[in-house]
């Protein structure tokens, strides 16, 4: 046995039994996965605040182009593109990739599988600090000469490859690329850690098929991250070389920028699109899968029913993961690809709808005839399902080249991806926050404030993003700074105004959340050990959990995570660690 499990030091180095003392080792350069999870969470919280402010500035500029916005001044068109680029980049990388996976995953994956820490705590700390550095580099792009880049979060060449191509395309663009390269490295280290932990550190009895679906989602997300970020890293290196060493991977010949001929030839901008989207599509699943895991967990817990089709849920996530690597071409229908490849990509994309639909129906099946408890986390989980469906339904349309070609680069696409990946994933984060807050801080978040927050955010999200479908179908292009001067778009301005008002209100509503979060940390009602009457391991240990999670013991697991309302059982839930056998049902 010893042989099979390797040398003694193959284990987490932090599990020394004693928690570190001293502020720096405990809270700054901590090796404790729980502290690191919270660090990631606060990084994401900072990022989302910045991202939201940028989006408000964009929305305001769009309908009142001459308005002078505090802090931003009067926005120029190229500045709009900068805001848009940084908004998208910050949201996708530093919010949606960071909070659900690195934040909550770090905190709860080890606890939910009964491990004392991640498999490689030092690497875990390194991942966080690399992410932090990456974020600092990204933000610094705002402050260098020329400002932040304006080539969008997709960063397509040739705009992104030629320093003279725009105001932010000098140093700002280099910083963007360096930041993303660091982010890739950090994410790969994190993913490696998650996978190893899941494979190697499950407590006795915690077989793979007894894991909560949250753990499955973090595990599969980590696999996607491990495979996808390496490709973006390679693309980023090549683009940096094009910009700084004069290579021509992405730049074709014969370009003239501001009257100056460009000294590149023979490259292909499409190469970047392939590399980027080979990463980019899995990335959207990296953003949404943890939300799916959280939704599954919460819907079952608060419906007091076992999850409907546990195995189907696991296999569906695996299928999504695999198919997710075969559909990147659906972002490139406009690139002049062969209709045969377009057909193949279109077909694969439609195929991904099948496991997604399986998940949706299983969520509904879970709630069906359940004794639903409408707590705040449950509301956000239901909101997640709703947004996932609303955003998902436009997917099969965009998946068909014939429909995508007119809709491409219009607000229809903006509506689609904001609903399904933007706001849905944010709802997953909110659900997780309200659900696990009592475990993390020992207090409950305020219920009334939470409900108001939910209603405003839910209605607000629909008000912002639903009308964008109509804008898109009416031909309103995406990534344009203002529409007030354009004749054929004039009738759409009222819709734009409505969206902007909705955005201002919805963003303001997030102050409620922030207030609730920090106020409840200090003043919230003290939480019981297992306030939601859930079954998973994190609710069996102290709050907040001790340094090694279970105070020197390793839990033993006897059941899956979804033993709710088991007929004949004493209570309507059976903890995973409860040794009494579950009556057949």
């Amino acid at each position, binding site marked *: 046995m010893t042989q099979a499990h390797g040398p003694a030091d*193959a284990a987490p180095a932090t599990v020394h039994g004693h928690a570190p003392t001293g502020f720096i080792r405990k809270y700054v350069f901590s090796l404790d996965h729980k502290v690191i999870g919270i660090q990631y969470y606060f990084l994401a919280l900072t990022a989302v605040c910045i991202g939201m402010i940028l989006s408000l500035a964009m929305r305001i500029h769009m309908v009142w182009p001459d308005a002078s916005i505090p802090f931003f001044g009067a926005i120029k068109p190229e500045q709009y593109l900068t805001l848009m680029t940084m908004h998208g980049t910050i949201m996708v990388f530093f919010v949606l990739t960071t909070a659900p996976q690195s934040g909550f995953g770090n905190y709860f994956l080890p606890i939910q599988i009964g491990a004392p820490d991640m498999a490689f705590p030092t*690497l875990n700390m390194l991942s966080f600090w690399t992410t932090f550095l990456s974020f600092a580099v990204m933000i610094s792009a705002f402050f260098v000469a020329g400002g932040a880049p304006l080539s969008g979060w997709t960063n397509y060449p040739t705009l992104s490859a030629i320093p003279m191509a725009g105001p932010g395309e000098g140093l700002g663009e280099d910083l963007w690329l360096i930041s993303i390269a660091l982010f890739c490295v950090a994410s790969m280290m994190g993913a490696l850690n998650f996978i190893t932990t899941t494979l190697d550190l499950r407590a006795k009895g915690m077989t793979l098929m007894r894991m909560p679906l949250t753990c499955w989602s973090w595990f599969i997300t980590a696999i996607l991250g491990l*495979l996808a970020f390496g490709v973006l890293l390679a693309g980023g290196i*090549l683009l940096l070389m094009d910009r700084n060493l004069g290579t021509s991977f992405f730049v074709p010949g014969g370009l003239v920028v501001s009257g100056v001929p460009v*000294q*590149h030839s023979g490259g292909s901008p499409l190469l970047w699109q392939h590399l980027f989207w080979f990463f980019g599509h899995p990335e959207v699943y990296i953003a949404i899968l943890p939300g799916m895991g959280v939704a599954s967990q919460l819907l079952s817990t608060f419906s007091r029913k076992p999850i409907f089709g546990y195995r189907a849920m696991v296999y569906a996530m695996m299928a999504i993961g695999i198919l997710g690597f075969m559909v990147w071409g659906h972002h490139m229908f406009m690139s002049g690809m062969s209709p045969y490849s377009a057909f193949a990509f279109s077909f694969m994309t439609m195929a991904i709808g099948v496991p997604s639909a399986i998940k949706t129906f299983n969520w509904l099946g879970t709630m069906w005839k359940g004794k639903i408890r409408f707590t705040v986390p449950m509301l956000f989980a239901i909101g997640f399902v709703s947004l996932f469906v609303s955003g998902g339904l436009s997917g099969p349309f965009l998946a068909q080249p014939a429909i995508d070609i007119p809709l491409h680069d219009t607000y229809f696409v903006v509506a689609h991806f904001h609903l399904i990946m933007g706001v849905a994933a944010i709802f997953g984060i909110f659900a997780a926050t309200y659900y696990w807050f009592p475990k993390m801080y020992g207090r409950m978040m305020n219920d009334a404030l939470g409900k108001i927050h939910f209603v405003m955010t839910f209605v607000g999200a629909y008000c912002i993003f639903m009308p964008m479908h109509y804008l898109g179908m009416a031909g309103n292009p995406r990534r344009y700074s203002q529409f007030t001067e354009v004749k054929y778009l004039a009738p759409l301005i009222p819709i734009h105004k409505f969206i902007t008002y909705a955005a201002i209100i919805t963003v303001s509503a997030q102050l409620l959340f922030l207030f609730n979060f920090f106020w409840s940390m200090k003043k919230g009602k003290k939480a019981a050990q297992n306030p939601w009457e859930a079954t998973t391991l994190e609710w069996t240990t102290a709050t907040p959990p001790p340094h090694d999670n279970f105070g020197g013991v390793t839990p033993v697991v006897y059941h899956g995570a979804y033993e709710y309302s088991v007929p004949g059982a004493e209570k309507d839930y059976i903890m995973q660690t409860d040794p009494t056998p579950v009556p057949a049902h």
Partner: protein
Amino acid sequence: MADVAVQHSVAGAYEPSLFGTYSKKIGMWLFLLSDSLTFGALLFAYSYGRISTPNWPTPFGKASIVNATIMTVCLLSSSLTMVLGVLASKKGDHKATVRWLLATMFFGALFVVLHAKEWNGLIHEGLRPFSNPWAKNVPQFGGTFFTLTGMHMLHVTIGVCYLGVVALRKKWLPILLGIWLLGWLLTPATNVFHLGIHVLLLVAVVSAVILVLKPKVYDAHDVEIAGLYWHFVDLVWMFIFPLVYLMSTKVV
């Protein structure tokens, strides 16, 4: 250190791990998986440029191919010595392990030196990341050549240093710094490796940190994991050699 692996094995407190491996080995496999995707993307970029460019230059004459073949033999031999090193460490024969690891490092270092010489020759002939003397309108040739082989050379260099840490531990640091200093002083300032050699300095810093954190004798498992890395780097070369060299031999 009441650590997990002890409980893991003694008390049976954990589920048996997949394939009976242990964390560090899984970790290395996963790293190699993601690294193979990075190399895969670079090879894709190369193939993409190559297929879409009609008159790709084929400059590698007999001397180049012979050189590259010798380099390949170096790597193949190093894989063999690595296997022997892993076997020796499994038997607990520390002396033999170190000897085989040093042999592996020797072949690896020879590979890098030969490669560097070749780079210098090509640069002398006029090959640049953005142009080449053989086909004026195919700047991709130099770009892909230097990226792919450079990335691989970096991996071999790191591999040699990795084995150095495993085999010699603290004693490796002064040797590494010596190599760095010699390399730096002996290459003329116009040579790319005059600058490139500073990678060793970075590696030395990282090695020092690792040695401070883990000042222990590396055991059979560590040797095995280092071996995984080493074989992977060899494997990558087995793609680069045919794709970059053999497919671009000079046609006479």
